């Protein structure tokens, strides 16, 4: 698959309205364009029309000589490599673009919480990160706020203060679930409105786990930033530490040694493997096929033990670092892993075949939780969810990083958009990952596994494909310290897809639909 570069496309697309020479290249394949409010207002609808998706939007202070708040709008055009970053100063009123790019809604609410920036014509002004326990006019991301623990929250009841959408009519009832759920699971609140059995409306309230990670990173050194990346979401440690490390490397113009890149690829794909195994198993649990689920859980446990042997952590924590790896993985272990994975493949395929031969499984999977492909770009739905709804996208291929550009593979794409499609896409990805690991393991280079690096000033955007989909990391280093670190994980975008996927399905199907998307609360709440 040949990926055209976004820059070439942009130079034609932007002229004559905006001089494309104003585009400045960042440390990676990110192109920055400063716009005033009139230019921006004219450009956004044009971008939307041309199929650009808004994949990130965040604020920062003191950027490029402007002391106030600047907003960075990150756009990606599907199947073009690179990203367009539009810089908007807030010295004049900022209009909401949620009507043009619905994915902006969450982002704008987040910026409003963090900086107190009001968006004109925003249709949703409710708080996002900061629940009602936080005082009014509290904006933790502004520079003048010194990060410190707050006093105990007063006994505020969220209920009265957070207006959920009201659905009324004869026979309509509400079911509220959470934040504390019945299983061993992260907290979040779901408000279903149902009539009879089908769901009429679902509203999700998240951010119960908001830990203030972005603020914690400010003013800290590179090593601390790595710990932050690792804390974003436990089972995405490899993807997030990779993205962070990669951002630092771009800024410092350092290339990790080839051996490190190969081992990183193995770690990233191991993460995809154990993550998908848990989802596949969970989906089988939710349709009452525990025999298959248990077999897949056993395989997953074996993978997690391999993680431990490879990295010292069952969650692949503490190994990927800027410049390479913190420890080497001996070739002997990699070869043993390859031997194991060959056996694993047979056992895995057998279980999947058995599961898909069960009518009770197929019946629950098919036509359940359909994500309409028209939602994909507006909501910026990513990863398995997008590929199972017909989108031919995978960051590993569209924005190749590490060694992915050298390896040939096709993303599995299915058009149906239901639970079954997501199950099958995951199965296919497990097989792809096995292939990628085996290929890489068979030609592991000798040599160094880390190169030294010295912090430089600069900023960089990195996109990676975590097991859940595309994650965006934007890092700005100044004087050896982190000035701003923004993370937007795949879950953050895909949560909004669930609200649409459940419509018309019955409430008992919700756990299955939820599991088929497997979203991280921690990775969303930050």
């Amino acid at each position, binding site marked *: 698959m040949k990926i055209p570069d976004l820059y070439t496309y942009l130079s034609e697309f932007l002229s004559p309205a905006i001089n494309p020479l104003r585009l400045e290249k960042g440390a990676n394949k990110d192109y920055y364009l400063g716009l005033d409010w009139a230019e921006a207002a004219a450009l956004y609808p044009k971008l939307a029309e041309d199929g650009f998706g808004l994949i990130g939007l965040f604020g920062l202070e003191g950027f490029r000589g402007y002391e106030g708040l600047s907003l960075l709008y990150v756009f990606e055009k599907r199947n073009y490599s690179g990203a367009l970053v539009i810089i908007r100063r807030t010295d004049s009123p900022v209009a909401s673009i949620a009507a043009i790019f619905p994915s902006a809604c969450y982002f704008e609410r987040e910026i409003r919480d963090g900086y107190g920036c009001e968006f004109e014509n925003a249709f949703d002004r409710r708080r996002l990160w*900061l*629940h009602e*326990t*936080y005082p009014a006019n509290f904006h*933790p991301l502004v520079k003048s*706020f010194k*990060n*410190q*623990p*707050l006093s*105990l*929250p007063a*006994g*505020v*009841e969220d209920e009265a203060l957070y207006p959920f959408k009201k659905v009324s009519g004869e026979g309509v009832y509400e079911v509220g679930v959470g*934040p*504390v759920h*019945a*299983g*061993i*699971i*992260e*907290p979040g609140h779901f408000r279903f409105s149902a009539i009879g059995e089908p769901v009429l409306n679902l509203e999700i309230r998240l*951010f*119960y*786990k*908001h*830990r*203030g*990670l972005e*603020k*914690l990173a400010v003013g800290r050194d590179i090593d*601390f930033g790595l*710990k*932050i990346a690792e*804390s*974003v*979401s*436990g*089972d995405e*440690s490899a993807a997030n530490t990779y993205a962070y490390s990669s951002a630092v490397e771009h800024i410092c113009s350092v290339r990790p040694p080839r051996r490190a890149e190969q081992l990183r690829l193995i770690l990233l794909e191991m993460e995809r493997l154990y993550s998908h195994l*848990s989802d596949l198993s969970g989906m089988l649990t939710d349709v009452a096929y525990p025999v298959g689920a248990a*077999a897949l*859980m*056993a395989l*997953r*446990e*074996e993978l*997690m033990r391999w993680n*431990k042997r490879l990295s010292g*952590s*069952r*969650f692949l*924590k503490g190994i990927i670092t800027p410049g390479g790896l913190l420890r080497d993985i001996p070739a002997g272990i990699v070869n043993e892993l390859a031997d194991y994975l060959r056996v694993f493949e047979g*056992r895995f395929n057998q279980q999947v075949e058995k599961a898909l031969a069960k009518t009770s499984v197929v019946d629950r999977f098919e036509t359940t939780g359909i994500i309409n492909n028209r939602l994909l770009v507006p909501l910026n739905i990513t990863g398995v969810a997008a590929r199972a709804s017909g989108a031919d996208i995978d960051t590993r291929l569209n924005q190749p990083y590490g060694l992915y550009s050298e390896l040939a593979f096709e993303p599995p794409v299915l058009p149906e958009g239901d639970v079954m499609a997501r199950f099958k896409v995951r199965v296919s990805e497990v097989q792809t990952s096995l292939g990628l690991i085996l290929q890489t393991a068979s030609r592991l280079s000798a040599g160094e596994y880390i190169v030294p690096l010295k912090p430089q000033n600069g900023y960089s955007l990195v996109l990676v494909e975590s097991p859940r989909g595309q994650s965006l990391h934007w890092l700005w280093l100044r004087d050896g310290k982190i000035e701003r670190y923004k993370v937007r994980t795949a879950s953050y975008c895909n949560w909004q897809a669930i609200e649409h996927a459940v419509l018309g399905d019955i409430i008992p199907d919700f756990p299955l639909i939820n599991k088929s998307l497997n979203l*991280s*609360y*921690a*990775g969303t*709440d930050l």
Partner: protein
Amino acid sequence: MKNVLNNIFKPKVCRQMPKGDADFDKLGFALKTEIHAVFGRSLAIRALDSGSDNSAEIELNNLSNPYYDIERFGLSFVASPRHADILIVTGAVSQNMAIAVRKTFDAMPSPKLVIALGDDACGSSIVCGGYGVLGGVDKILPVDLKIPGNPPEPIQIITALLGLMRSLGKK
């Protein structure tokens, strides 16, 4: 009919099952004895996440996978705090979760125990100290046992539980 008869009379073989984990089993059966001595029959645990990175919950869930299958030892995870003897809290208590954590604890019948599981919950992780979290679980609940780790592995969790049961047995 043949299937039914086979089900009853033929030996049940599970070739696909893993070999198990001898070290873990040893601890588990010791734990079973202790639980029996202290609680009479079984031990019910309610797990609650108050702001972890989710790896601690994954390990708690793993305790039920075929390798560990912790319910054999008389220990079960329950859905309601009203059924629980022990509350296991994972994660530093976030501002947004503080009320829910308190309410869950209040809903449990006494006597009750609280375990803080993972570095976040123990108050020793990097997320503590900012505006977003109150700190470790001991900031708002009386904690009886801390199990550190990022996250603690299944074997560490069961070792810690065994230690707790032994200390309760002595009282």
